[in-house]
């Protein structure tokens, strides 16, 4: 065999192998191809081995052709392998694809009671204005719940708070303990312990002897607010509560104040907010008035200040109180207050 013959054989073999490789469709045939050309007994290996029969001085050209052919086939093999592997994976994935519409592994997520959430929101709103959270007792003394708030015994104003009394009689046959009817007793408790300035909010449960219906519950939650210092005015009360309404119900809120009566404030006020549901046009929630009553408030009565040892000529202050369930009902469109403490998970899970 001459070098020429050998070189042309190699070229032929390379061309044939490349054409067969292009026609291969799966990995098993590729492996067969590899064995048949590049394997130990493969055609190319055999041909290369046969080059040994050529006299050494003539071998160079054929040797180079042989190496070229081997390199070319190995590269082509590698590329083809990759192509076929990708195709095989694609085919497998196509076959085993997931129904991605099925739900994933369930993750347990809990919830906070809507009262907890609204109390936090309200306290956070006042925190931006420097009010700190304080808590107080739910079982109270008549003295704090009424008398120190300028509501003496046998005063008709007591009719404003139907009271649940604790079954405990003192030496005089009186009943000194009750379930607090509002969070206001903390006004006196805080001022007795603190010197002005005072700026607090008091969240907590309150109780009234009351028949329940969709808007009344005997067991409810209030947030009380109190600010006392030199120079605090009704104008500050208005500004503070206005800011509160904007934080809680949106920047475009309008508020309005009317005169109202609570024995422990003078002047007394009630705040309404323009209905955020109908933008003041009138709807069922605002009873077609465009306004929603939000809270009671006023300037702390001088008798209350004097009662805790504050000089009412030097110090003035304001107080306010609001019902959390009502606030949450407005925010979430809850129509029945009795849902709050029935603890039905179908209700609780929505918050």
């Amino acid at each position, binding site marked *: 065999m001459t070098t020429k013959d050998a070189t042309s054989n190699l070229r032929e073999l390379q061309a044939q192998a490349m054409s067969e490789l292009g026609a291969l469709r799966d990995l098993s045939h590729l492996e067969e191809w590899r064995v048949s050309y590049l394997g130990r007994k493969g055609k190319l290996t055999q041909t290369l081995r046969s080059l040994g029969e050529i006299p050494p001085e003539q071998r160079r050209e054929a040797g180079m052709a042989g190496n070229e052919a081997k390199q070319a086939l190995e590269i082509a093999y590698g590329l083809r392998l990759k192509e076929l592997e990708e195709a095989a994976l694609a085919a497998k994935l196509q076959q085993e694809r997931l129904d991605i519409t099925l739900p994933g592994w369930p993750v347990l997520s809990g919830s906070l009671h809507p009262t907890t959430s609204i109390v936090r929101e309200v306290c956070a709103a006042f925190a931006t204005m420097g009010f700190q959270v304080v808590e107080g007792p739910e079982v109270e003394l008549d003295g704090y719940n009424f008398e120190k708030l300028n509501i003496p015994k046998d005063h008709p104003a007591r009719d404003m708070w139907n009271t649940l009394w604790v079954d405990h009689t003192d030496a005089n046959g009186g009943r000194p303990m009750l379930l607090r009817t509002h969070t206001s007793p903390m006004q006196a408790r805080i001022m007795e312990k603190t010197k002005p300035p005072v700026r607090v909010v008091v969240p907590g449960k309150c109780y009234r002897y009351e028949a329940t219906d969709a808007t009344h519950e005997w067991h409810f939650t209030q947030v009380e607010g109190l600010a006392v*210092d030199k120079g605090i005015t009704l*104008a500050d009360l208005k500004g503070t509560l206005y800011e509160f309404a904007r934080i809680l119900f949106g920047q475009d809120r309008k508020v309005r104040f009317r005169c109202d009566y609570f024995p422990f404030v003078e*002047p007394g006020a009630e705040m309404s907010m323009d209905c955020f549901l109908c933008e003041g046009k009138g709807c069922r929630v605002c009873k077609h008035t465009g306004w929603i009553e939000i809270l009671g408030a006023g300037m702390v009565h001088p008798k209350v200040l004097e009662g805790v040892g504050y000089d009412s000529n030097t110090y003035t202050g304001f107080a306010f109180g609001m019902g959390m369930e009502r606030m949450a009902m407005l925010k979430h469109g809850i129509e029945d207050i009795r849902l709050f403490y029935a603890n039905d998970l179908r209700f609780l899970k929505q918050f």
Partner: protein
Amino acid sequence: MQVPLSWLKKYVPITLPPRELAHRLTMAGVEVTAVHEQGTQWERDKVLVGHVLKVEPHPNADRLRLPTVDLGKGEQVTVVCGAPNVAAGQKIIFAKEGARLFNTHSSRVEPLRPANIRGVRSVGMVCSALELDLGQDQEGIVVLPDDAPIGAPAADYLGDIIFEIETTPNRPDCLCVLGIAHEVAALTGQKVTEPDLSYPEDGDPIVKHVAIEIADPDLCHRYTASLITGVKVGPSPKWLQDALAKSGQRPINNVVDVTNYVMLEYNQPLHAFDFDKVKERHIIVRQARPGEELVTLDGATRKLSPPMLVIADAHDAVGLAGVMGGANTEVSGYTTAILLESANFEPINTRRTSAALKLSTGAAYRFERAIRAELAPLALRRATQLILQVAGGKAAKGIVDLQPRRNPPPVVRLTRCRVKQVLGADLSMSKVQSVLVSLGFTPTKAEGHGDDLVLEAPFWRSDIAIEDDLVEEIARIIGYDEMPTTSLSGHIPHHVPQPMWDLKQKARDLLAAAGMHEAISYSLTSHETLERAEVFGNDIQPLAIANPMSAQFQYLRPNLRGSMFETLAANWRTSPRDGLRLFEIGRAYLPRQAGHKATLPDERETLIAAFAGRRFPLSWLAKEQAGQDMSFFDAKGVLESLLSGLGVETRYEPAEDSALLTGRAARILCGDQAVGAVGEVHPRILERFDLTGAPVAIFEIDLAKLLEAAARTEKRYSTAGRFPESARDIALVVSADVSSESIEAVIKRHKMVRRITPFDVFVGSSVAAGKRSIAYQIVFQSPKDTLTAEQVSRALEDILRQLQRELGAEMRV
């Protein structure tokens, strides 16, 4: 209170549309809760006063009749009528075809159409209160007084606008029409015209006929009386009946109606005695004798006792002072002489009497709100005048007016500086004065500085005592919305830590993040629930409510278990297959022993969590776990995650708790302090709450105790270590009573051990009886270098030797 606009107009010109006026009153603190337009919607040509001429039976229906109605100007109509009370001679309200009325069949306001009723054509109708929107009565037709003018538009005859007013306890003056008139005047810049009080005093001087004495001047501040003889008791004229009816009062007879009318006009309760029944013509105002009885006007026999105040004649009580008159001197059709009382009684005693006898009346309601004594003679003269007008007779000369102690009218000084200090508005004193004068205040000669005002409150106001009361008057009449609005300035007080509040909030967040749902339940519970939860058994005597609304809410809960079991049960009923994970943070109320001293209970902040039912939500991915129910370790897992989130280190030891299953209950310890319990609830208790079919695991924490413990253990950062960790697994066989905690304690003592996690617990045939196998993964790390396999093996051997020596543990092979 109901105030008809027609009545209000008698004293003050009305210059605003009714709804605008209602709004102004409301903003000024006199809340108008509703404005009823009575009859303004009735067409003047279609809804008329008619006269029933005759009533004939319906040919085809027993319950229907055919009244013929005269509508004036010769117009007569016969219609079909179903009302049982229609009768010839009545004055009624007739609606013609097309009149817009409330249709009781469609429940809508619709034009009236002609109808064919059981074969008789009927055009128009005789109206009931419901159809006219005058009330709920649809059974009978509205019957008018006999003097109603035939053919007149009903809107003129009956129409009015009624303000429904809710007064606050400080403003008794707004319980009467004149009081509202004063408010209207101040708000609209008008003047009030007070009624004329004069009448002819033709009789003998009153002192010749009656002797009156106040025996208890503390309880009766003023007593005035007049005497009218020769009266004729009968029905009141229409104007009087109408005024009362529109104000929500039932007309009775002309004398009683006048007393009610004047009470609604002046706010002063009055009482008319049949003078001939007053024995010995002697009136004495005294305290009731112990055991004294009085039959009040409502027919009830009242057992009285001091210090209840009575009006008595020479022998017996004839009235309960300030509350209700006595039946023994009641005005009747035979009465000819009237002794009219207009008095002022002490508020607290009146309130107590009315409360003790459970007898609330308009009179008591007013006296307990401390109306002014100045009203008494004014209202007396007004009522005397009206009785003469509507019942005839002759008034004695003069009145009796006893006032043992005279309270001077309230006089209050007002400074410009205080107005500014409270309102934040610098108002001119001339503006302030004009507002207060419009409300009836009288400036007196001020002894004093600059432009201070000294004002006397008008005689109808009993709520003015201090300077700030005047400040409110100014603000409410000018309008709160006209006052300035500012932000708080001044110092923000120092921060005061509230660790309990913070702890509760953090615990809530951690539990919600662990998949728990927060519940809040009632603080009051029933005897039955406490018994079912076995709360009574543990020497706990819960605080009771003296006046519970029902047996359901009778006790302050001494722990949260009963509430939680009830919550579980309620949810179990609605969604029986769901896994329930609930928690509550609330107070438990424990009485403190202090005898008669009023000692407030210990309100213990408590956390309870409960787990019941399916561990995994139903899922196609978790088929194998589908049947698993939650139990002890579900509760403990959440508990551990909570406490680690709070940065508290705890231990557990077996506990005995009668409510929990033995062997499945643990005490939670922080150091030596027990802060709570975790365990599975005894089925005996669960059955009582209808919680059957799956275990219920709970944990309970006393948050105050936890807070103490948490305060001692601030979270400290420890370095993660630079060198790699290596983990080894070992399986041990130990006696069954050796706790995992004690094994872990031995392992942890080795200085190279970082973490230990038990990953298999096994009891069974391959383990000897009385023994169990526990496998741990132990993670080793050195702070100094990378541990070699040899070092780790040596450490493990050391640990095993130690475990064998101390706990008799063997390697499992």
